[in-house]
């Protein structure tokens, strides 16, 4: 009998604010240690928190993007535990009455196709500081710049049936949160972190097996790996007649292993209670209306629209919509006059490749790309020549594509005299192939066309070359 995997995810995303959740300190990444701190986020005696309203507005927007019910009144709670990088000895979070509940996020499962994950709750909280173990020999250094950075915690139901599904959900979540402009979702900067609850059960069983919590997963690539390792460990344990202990497991990327957290490090009883320093969080109804208004078209709707409005294949729509910036770029290119399918091809090809090589910078404006696509369409430049023009535009940043094509001598030549000259030159240079062609090996035609394009440095009009070659070879 085979096993079924059951996974639920708790994702922490950093809300894109300039200042911290409960004080005015900057959230800027990469500042020297302990410089973005004040009495509040240092937890000094006598300091009190005050809520950053913008962080709440972003969290409301995230909740709306995840189709949650936003509660007009929610309660901050203290989560108590001792850790050197937790300056107050508690984290201000939400517990019994979170900001939002009962949402859902549609995503595409690699196994089951279009499915929906339930969002059990979304609440706001503050981040802890950072313990740095490799900076001072034999000591732990504490950096409290992150202390008090605003987070939204998004908790799903036990909805995922494979590590691959969990990953697909996370990508969809990242996509939606980026679209809604509530978070950078940058794993490297710690602005998105994932904990997973994993259990296995025999196929057909309805009760959940004993779960473990897998922590410390800090890259998308590791999500599948860590969850697969833990699932396999659980199955092996059960098949050997063992029992699953309700442990917290830490993923160790270097060792490619999951290991149980030392029980001493575990602190199961957080002694939650309502935060007496903060009144109940009351969200003005207006913020919900504004949150709705601030929500852009979300990825799922946009993919569908790209398929219907532009007649794009689902695959193209998926690639283009993955990033809001790229999807916007594509649409601007089309608005500027390009046909949709060639525009999609260009964006998915040259534009994405260039952006990837340049850390996401889009160096050619969509208007210029549209003009270039037009030049290809009307036969002014060949497709290979257009790629050279694109590269030139990207590198120089300036210039109308037509002018660049001219300067590079890439304007297609339809003049019969010049074309004939290049054809003659190619045929003279390849007597063996000419002989074979004449003996009936007509599949060599594209070879000759290619050679003509090469000799002409892409300037020959590829639509006219084949007939000229055939004419010369008496075919």
């Amino acid at each position, binding site marked *: 009998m085979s096993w079924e995997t059951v996974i639920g995810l708790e994702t922490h995303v950093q809300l894109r604010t300039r200042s911290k959740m409960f004080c005015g300190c900057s959230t800027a990444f990469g500042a020297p240690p302990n410089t973005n701190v004040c009495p509040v986020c240092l937890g000094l005696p*006598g300091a009190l928190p005050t809520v950053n309203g913008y962080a709440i507005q972003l969290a409301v927007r995230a909740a709306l993007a995840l189709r949650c019910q936003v509660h007009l009144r929610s309660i901050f709670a203290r989560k108590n535990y001792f850790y050197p990088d937790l300056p107050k000895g508690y984290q201000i979070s939400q517990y019994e009455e979170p900001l939002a509940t009962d949402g859902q996020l549609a995503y595409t499962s690699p196994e089951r196709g279009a499915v929906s994950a339930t969002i059990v709750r979304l609440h706001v909280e503050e981040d802890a500081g950072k313990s740095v173990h490799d900076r001072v020999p034999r000591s732990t250094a*504490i950096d409290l710049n992150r202390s008090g950075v605003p987070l939204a915690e998004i908790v799903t139901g036990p909805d995922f049936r494979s590590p691959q599904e969990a990953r697909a959900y996370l990508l969809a979540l990242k996509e939606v949160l980026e679209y809604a402009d509530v978070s950078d979702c940058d794993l490297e900067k710690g602005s998105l972190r994932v904990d997973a609850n994993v259990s296995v059960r025999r196929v057909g069983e309805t009760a959940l097996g004993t779960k473990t919590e897998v922590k410390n997963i800090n890259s998308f690539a590791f999500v599948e790996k860590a969850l697969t390792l833990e699932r396999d460990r659980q199955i092996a344990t059960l098949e050997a007649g063992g029992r699953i202990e309700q442990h917290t497991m830490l993923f160790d990327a270097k060792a490619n292993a999951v290991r149980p957290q030392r029980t001493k490090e575990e602190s199961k009883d957080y002694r939650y*209670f309502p935060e007496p320093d903060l009144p109940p969080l009351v969200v003005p109804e207006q913020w919900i209306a504004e949150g709705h208004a601030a929500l852009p078209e979300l990825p799922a709707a946009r993919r569908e629209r790209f398929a219907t409005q532009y007649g794009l294949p689902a695959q193209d729509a998926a690639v283009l919509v993955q990033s809001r910036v790229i999807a916007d770029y594509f649409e601007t290119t089309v608005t500027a006059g390009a046909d949709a399918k060639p525009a999609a091809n260009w964006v998915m090809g040259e534009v994405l490749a260039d952006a990837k090589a340049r850390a996401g910078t889009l160096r050619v404006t969509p208007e210029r790309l549209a003009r270039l696509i037009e030049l290809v369409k009307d036969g002014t430049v060949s497709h290979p020549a257009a790629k050279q023009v694109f590269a030139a535009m990207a590198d120089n940043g300036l210039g109308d594509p037509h002018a660049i094509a001219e300067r590079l001598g890439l304007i297609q030549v339809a003049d019969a005299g010049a074309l004939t000259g290049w054809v003659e030159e190619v045929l003279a240079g390849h007597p063996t192939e000419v002989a074979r062609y004449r003996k009936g090996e007509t599949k060599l035609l594209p070879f000759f066309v290619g050679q003509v394009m090469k000799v002409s440095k892409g300037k020959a009009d590829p639509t006219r070359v084949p007939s000229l070659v055939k004419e010369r070879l008496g075919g």
Partner: protein
Amino acid sequence: MTSIAETASTLAGAASLNALLTPLSEVTASLTEQAARAPAGPLAGMPVAVKDNICTLEYTTSCGSRILEGYRSPFEATAITRLKAAGALIAGKTNCDEFAMGSSTEHSAFGRTMHPTDPSRVPGGSSGGSAALVAAGAVPAALGSETGGSVRQPASFCGIVGIKPTYGRVSRYGLVAFGSSLDQIGVCGRTVSDAARVLAAISGRDPMDSTCEDRDPFQLPAPPENLQGFVIGIPKEYFPPDLDPGVRRACERVIRLLKDLGAAVRDVSLPHTAYAIPTYYIIAPAEASSNLARYDGVRYGPRFNGVPDVRALYQSTRGKGFGAEVRRRILVGTYVLSAGYYDAYYRRAQRMRALIAQDFRNVFDRGVDLLFTPSTPTPAFKAGEKTGDPVAMYLADIFTVTANLAGIPGLTLPIGRVDGLPIGGQLLAPAFLEDEMLEAAFTLERAVPGTDEV
């Protein structure tokens, strides 16, 4: 306006009380410096001593605890900023029970404070240093803090005026937290006027404290001629059979005076009063166990012993840094918040707290303007008398703790003496009606011979 030399001399005169923690030379130097910068204002030149759990830039803020010995706050409490803006001078830090946990100022890491009229007795607590200094005439007023009566109880023991404002009337920013939902800065004053003027100066909205009400600073009322039109309730639960006879006699005299002054006096009942102490001793320690978690030896304050690992650092720092009463309350608080006990203790205590608050609203909604009660069940007790019996000590706050649970304002003023020891009478008012409470206090202060034997 008091001269700095005069203040230095009155403070020196009270030195034997161990009420002031700041060395006198430091206070004098700071007063001179502050006076040079002090603006004119309603409290111009008034020296105000400050309880050791309120953050000041001028002196250390150690909360009467080893764990914060020598700690200098990089910021000052909003109340301190406002005092200075009103022209007052901060005249040193006063002794208190460690982290304001206690009713006798015996639980201070820096030794106990003596009662000003009988050194063998306690001044009450936890703001015992502030009350004793004012009673000794060293300063006209001092800031204290209340979580369960820590201003009114020592003010009553020492024979001065003590006010606890409505929760949310004064910013808690810079008041080192004990029980955040109960804590409020209060004032000890030689007279109703001194205390009220200081309270008016520190009150009002503060964006740094989200639990501080969005209200204008409160205005001092004019003292009325009599109490005609006032309906004053006498809650029977505050006059139990075992009430100290001297306290009862003093209160009965006040009740007669209230009638003479034209007030309508009415017997009322606050039926949940008996549950106030147990309720308080769940909620306050629960919040304290969390509020005091930050004292871990990692960022500030002394560390004790070597540091083999972080767990040992916590254990030795907190084990040696906190005194027995603080450790007891942290343990109780941790217990009542633990999974499996939360519903039985903390949640039930919150429900009881709501019922206690409702008791007051019921009475005030039925036409009663103010309540009059004894401030404490007995006069000041002997040092050492209750240190071995925490529950007996807790019961010293039985008449004051209800106002903290309900969030309403309360005031104590001297209403006579028994065997030379002061007795205090308490006025309680609906939330944010400090002005009515003060009108009655002004009138009573004039009418009651506060230092007579009863």
